C-alpha cells in the first residue's frame, strides 16, 4: 500500500537492518544477478595480490540495492521517482548494515504530493558507507 501524505510529516524517520554478517556468497550472488563480475568483488587472490586490498568487498550497487528496501517498504511499490546514492566507504564481508531514512520535504508536483527523503546506511562501527536521497509519489 502506498504512503499517504496526510499521515506523514517532515522529520519522520525509519531504521531497518539490511544485512547481518554479509557473506562472500551474497556478494557472488549479486555479481551473478547484476552481471558485474569485477574480480575485486569475488576473487580473493586478485583482490589481495594484484589490487592490494585486504579482501574482496561488496559492489556499491549491492549496498544501494539493499538500501532501496527501506524506501520501498515505506513509500510503497512503484512509487519512487528518483533514487541517488554516493558510495562513501567499502562494505566488507562480515559487515552488518543498518539503513536510516528521513522524510525531508513534502511538495506538490502537478497537484500530487511528492516526498523527499535522505537516506544513510551505516556499518557496525557506525560509519556511513552510503548516503543518498530519493523522491517518491505519495497518495493524498
Amino acid at each position, binding site marked *: 500500500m502506498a504512503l499517504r501524505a496526510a499521515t506523514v510529516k517532515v522529520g519522520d524517520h525509519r531504521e531497518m537492518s539490511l544485512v547481518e554478517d554479509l557473506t562472500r556468497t551474497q556478494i557472488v550472488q549479486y555479481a551473478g544477478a547484476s552481471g558485474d563480475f569485477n574480480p575485486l568483488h569475488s576473487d580473493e587472490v586478485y583482490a589481495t595480490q594484484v589490487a592490494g586490498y585486504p579482501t574482496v568487498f561488496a559492489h556499491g550497487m549491492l549496498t544501494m540495492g539493499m538500501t532501496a528496501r527501506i524506501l520501498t517498504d515505506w513509500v510503497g511499490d512503484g512509487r519512487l521517482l*528518483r533514487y541517488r546514492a554516493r558510495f562513501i566507504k567499502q562494505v566488507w564481508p562480515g559487515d552488518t548494515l543498518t539503513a536510516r531514512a528521513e522524510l525531508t520535504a513534502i511538495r506538490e508536483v502537478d497537484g500530487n504530493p511528492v516526498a523527499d527523503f535522505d537516506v544513510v546506511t551505516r556499518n557496525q562501527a557506525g560509519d556511513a558507507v552510503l548516503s543518498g536521497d530519493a523522491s517518491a509519489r505519495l497518495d493524498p
Partner: protein
Amino acid sequence: MAVERFPVEEGAILLFARAVGDPNPIYTDPAYAATTELGGLIAPPTFIQSSAHFDPDYPLRPKPGQAWFGSGRTPTGRTAETGGPGDGAGSGDAGGAKRGTGLHAEQEFEYHRPLRPGDVLTSETRPEKRWEKQGRSGQLVFSETITEYRDQDGQLVVTARGVGVRTEAPVAKESR
C-alpha cells in the same frame, strides 16, 4: 556503450531480488502482485543495472577466448600486452596496483515508470563531466555518464547517472 535489447524477465527479477535480500512479493509472486495497484510484478529499483548482461562489450564479464584480468593459474590474467578493461564509470571498474583502482562513486536513477517483466529495453550511454580531486591517497579522477533506457515503444523508462572514480592507491580496510 549501448544495449540493443534488454528483455526484462521474471526469472532475472527473482534472482536480483534475492541477491539484494529483498523478500517483497511484488518482485516474485504474480498472484500477489495481481492484487496490488500495480496489477502485476515489477522490478526492484536498482534492477536496471543488470542491463550489463546484455551489453556485448561490457568489460567486467569474462568472455570466451579473451584474457580475463581475474585470477586463474596466476593472480591476474592481465599482461602488459592485454591490459585491462577501460574506465567504466557507472559500474565500477577493474584495476590493478599499477593502474590504480576504478570504483563506483555515485549512482542516480530517475524513474519514469516501473519496469515490468515483458518490457524490452534499449539504452544509450553518453559521457558527461570529468573532473579531478586530490584525495587522501592521491589524485582522484571522476567521470560521469548518463544512460537513457527506453522501452519497446520508444518511451523513456529510466535515466541513470553514474560516476566512476579512479584512485592511485587501494582503499585501506578501516571498518573492521
